[in-house]
């Protein structure tokens, strides 16, 4: 139990309050309300740490903290209270860890922003939006049910949209923002369908309830197809948010936003939400009951998309000259590692469950471990890149070079980040990446497809080291090729960088005091992701391989970009090489294809339907109207000429007759009286005559 559980609400409410405050009064606050945002975030961080420590204390290392739901109010009431949808927070090991991670990174990046955004216009907007974003991310990782997760997830999407389009005068920024929103929206719709299906199957959306009901509903209401479909739909959302193939196209363009935004949203936190969601989807992937057949197909799809995207994105990073885009592609690639790890881990765990064996959650832990590490070093790299851009006022690496002299701090911290990303021991990336790859290799013994994915992962490790150091060498080594006078950033920016650099070194080793990262994220059984110690020799060998290729990649980058002994032009000069280069620069033409699809198919459909609406439907309406007018004209003519003609004729004749009759009207009472008398006489005569006739007739008949 968490003492003072309302504290957990405050973690969310601090940044929300900052958002409201800055949104309303930002113009009147110093630094556009930046200090307010930082203060709120610091509060959130402290409280998150408090919650995290409590979780650790009660769970202990390797022990179990009972997941705790903190009830809020009802959102959608229902006559059956258990069917109501509530807002409530879930605190378990994973969410507590994520809360700390997110609030810490947000805090650092907000502080960094104070320096980076100092000269920008529209600071209130910036700080309001990032505060809202922080609320969204904190809410996402602490949500108790899928609907709440979806809501905060979408709030993040909104903030991402707004922040990518922060420089609203740049048309590229507007286009990128639109692209980001729409592409992730496709994933969100899949996620939404997933939520619909879950609700209709389980009549609840809360993680714990679902897990409890799982075994009793299978295979009746919860058919095997549905069990496969649900995690795939959720993964669809994750694909959109984490920019995996085929919905990866938005992330590189999203670099149009401020660098801090790229660091925060598009590297450290929001894109991780997809991984987090997939981790939550483990309740479907690994049902923890041998009566339920795990959805191996869904697991394989997740792993395959992860494995494919990791190499796919890494290749595109190799040719890019925009310092931020290289990092963006690298982010996609690293996220794909996490999905690969989750997939492979889920496969192993699911097999264990179906065989009734003890569950080995190494893959799960490894993926989240990588998430943890990656958040630090990628944030570091982005912020370092921001510092560089701040100094040279360009994103293009061709106009940089030799910056290690004017930017000593930045270059050193970037080196730390690069080493971590490349996976060189003892930096953090090494531990988690190696772990993921060895788990994938292990899974190969269950399904040989994982060997292929492992090979892709190893190839990526090579490419990662290569492009990372390509970036570092191009930026900090050689001669300066730009025209500015670069200078080091102010301390408000460098201090967060140094803190992060420290973490890239430490966070990997953090697993040792905890006896394995698995103790932190704790899925079902505390299987340690226990780097390098006490593991089979095979694992050491595998990690050695992954580091070996990384060193190879580093060496190649050094050869090509630092010493220029192997000029890159030699590769691009050949025909095949030129084609590959072009293909990679064009990003496999996928963006073009999407654009073309949007322009022709979607917009074409829209135009066609618009035409249909205006011409056909409205045409029919107007045609009916016009036909009505024609009919009306016809009836009008008929009315005037035939009906009215008849009427007029009758009246004319009447007038003529009456004129004649009028002469008979003397106006004298007595002449009228004569007529009356005559009439009476006639009537009497008729009566008598008729009765006489009748009598006569009956007389005849008789």
């Amino acid at each position, binding site marked *: 139990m968490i003492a003072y559980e309302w504290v957990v609400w405050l973690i969310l409410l601090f940044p929300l309050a900052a958002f409201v405050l800055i949104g309303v009064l930002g113009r009147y606050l110093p630094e556009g309300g930046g200090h307010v945002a930082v203060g709120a975030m610091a509060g959130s961080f402290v409280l998150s740490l408090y919650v995290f420590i409590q979780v650790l204390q009660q769970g202990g290392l390797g022990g179990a903290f009972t997941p705790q739901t903190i009830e809020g109010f009802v959102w959608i009431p229902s006559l059956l209270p258990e069917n109501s949808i509530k807002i409530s927070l879930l605190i378990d090991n994973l969410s507590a860890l994520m809360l700390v991670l997110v609030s810490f990174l947000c805090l650092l990046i907000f502080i960094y922003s104070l320096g980076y955004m100092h000269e920008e216009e529209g600071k209130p907007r910036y700080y309001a939006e990032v505060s809202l974003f922080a609320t969204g991310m904190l809410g996402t990782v602490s949500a108790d049910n899928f609907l709440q997760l979806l809501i905060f997830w979408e709030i993040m999407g909104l903030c991402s949209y707004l922040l990518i389009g922060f420089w609203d005068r740049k048309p590229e920024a507007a286009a990128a923002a639109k692209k980001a929103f729409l592409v992730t929206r496709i994933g969100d719709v899949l996620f939404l369908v997933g939520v619909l299906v879950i609700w209709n199957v389980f009549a609840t959306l809360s993680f714990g309830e679902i897990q409890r009901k799982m075994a009793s509903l299978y295979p009746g209401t919860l058919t095997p197809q549905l069990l496969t479909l649900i995690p795939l739909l959720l993964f669809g959302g994750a694909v959109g948010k984490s920019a995996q193939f085929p919905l990866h196209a938005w992330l590189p363009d999203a670099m149009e936003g401020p660098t801090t935004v790229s660091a925060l949203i598009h590297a450290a936190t929001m894109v991780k939400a997809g991984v987090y969601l997939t981790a939550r989807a483990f309740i479907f992937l690994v049902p923890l009951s041998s009566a339920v057949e795990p959805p191996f197909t869904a697991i394989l799809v997740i792993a395959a998309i992860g494995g494919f995207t990791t190499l796919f994105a890494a290749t595109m990073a190799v040719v890019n000259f925009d310092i931020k885009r290289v990092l963006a592609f690298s982010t996609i690639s690293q996220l794909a590692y996490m999905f690969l790890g989750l997939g492979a881990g889920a496969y192993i765990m699911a097999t264990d469950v179906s065989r009734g064996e003890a569950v080995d959650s190494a893959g799960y832990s490894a993926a989240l471990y990588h998430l943890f590490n990656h958040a630090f070093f990628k944030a570091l790299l982005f912020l370092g890149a921001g510092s560089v851009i701040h100094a040279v006022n360009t994103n293009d690496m061709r106009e940089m070079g030799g910056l290690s002299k004017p930017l000593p701090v930045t270059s050193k911290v970037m080196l730390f980040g690069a080493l971590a990303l490349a996976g060189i021991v003892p930096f953090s990336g090494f531990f988690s990446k190696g772990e993921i790859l060895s788990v994938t290799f292990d899974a190969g013994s269950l399904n040989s497809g994982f060997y292929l994915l492992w090979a892709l992962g190893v190839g990526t490790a090579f490419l990662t080291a290569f492009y990372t150091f390509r970036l570092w060498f191009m930026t900090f080594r050689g001669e300066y090729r730009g025209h500015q006078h670069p200078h080091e950033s102010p301390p408000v920016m460098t201090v967060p960088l140094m803190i992060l650099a420290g973490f890239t070194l430490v966070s990997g080793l953090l697993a040792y005091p905890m006896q394995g990262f698995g103790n932190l994220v704790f899925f079902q059984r505390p299987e340690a992701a226990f780097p390098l110690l006490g593991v089979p020799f095979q694992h050491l060998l595998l990690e050695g391989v992954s580091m070996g290729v990384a060193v190879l990649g580093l060496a190649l980058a050094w050869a090509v970009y630092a010493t220029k002994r192997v000029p890159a032009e030699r590769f691009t000069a050949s025909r095949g090489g030129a084609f590959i280069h072009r293909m990679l620069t064009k990003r496999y033409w996928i963006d073009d294809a999407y654009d073309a699809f949007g322009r022709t198919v979607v917009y074409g459909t829209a135009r066609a339907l618009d035409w249909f609406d205006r011409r056909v439907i409205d045409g029919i309406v107007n045609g009916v109207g016009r036909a009505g007018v024609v009919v009306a004209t016809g009836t009008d003519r008929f009315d005037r000429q035939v009906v009215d003609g008849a009427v007029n004729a009758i009246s004319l004749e009447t007038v003529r007759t009456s004129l004649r009759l*009028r002469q008979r*009207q*003397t*106006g*004298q*009472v*007595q002449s*009228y*009286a*004569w007529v009356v*008398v005559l009439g009476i006489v006639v009537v009497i005569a008729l009566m008598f005559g008729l009765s006489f006739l009748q009598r006569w007739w009956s007389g005849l008949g008789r």
Partner: protein
Amino acid sequence: MIPLQYELLLSAMLLCIGLYGVLARRNGIIVLMSIEIILNASILNFVAFSSYSGDASGQVFALLGIAVAAAEAAVGLAVFLGIYQTHGTIELDKIRFLKW
């Protein structure tokens, strides 16, 4: 008992005399008087039939007829007075309101 035929004959004679007055005389007041005679002829019929059939409702009708006749005479005279005041005459052949 007086035979019914006699009574009917008397009534018919009165009717004819009254009718003559209505149709032939031009003086409005005389015409009104003639109408009174016609009315009396019909009232006579009511009374006679009532007496023959032993049913009192004929007398009731007779009373009603008398009342109407009196009222009619009053109204008629009033109308002629009005006409006289506007036109200065009650000669029926000079009055042509009915001519359109």
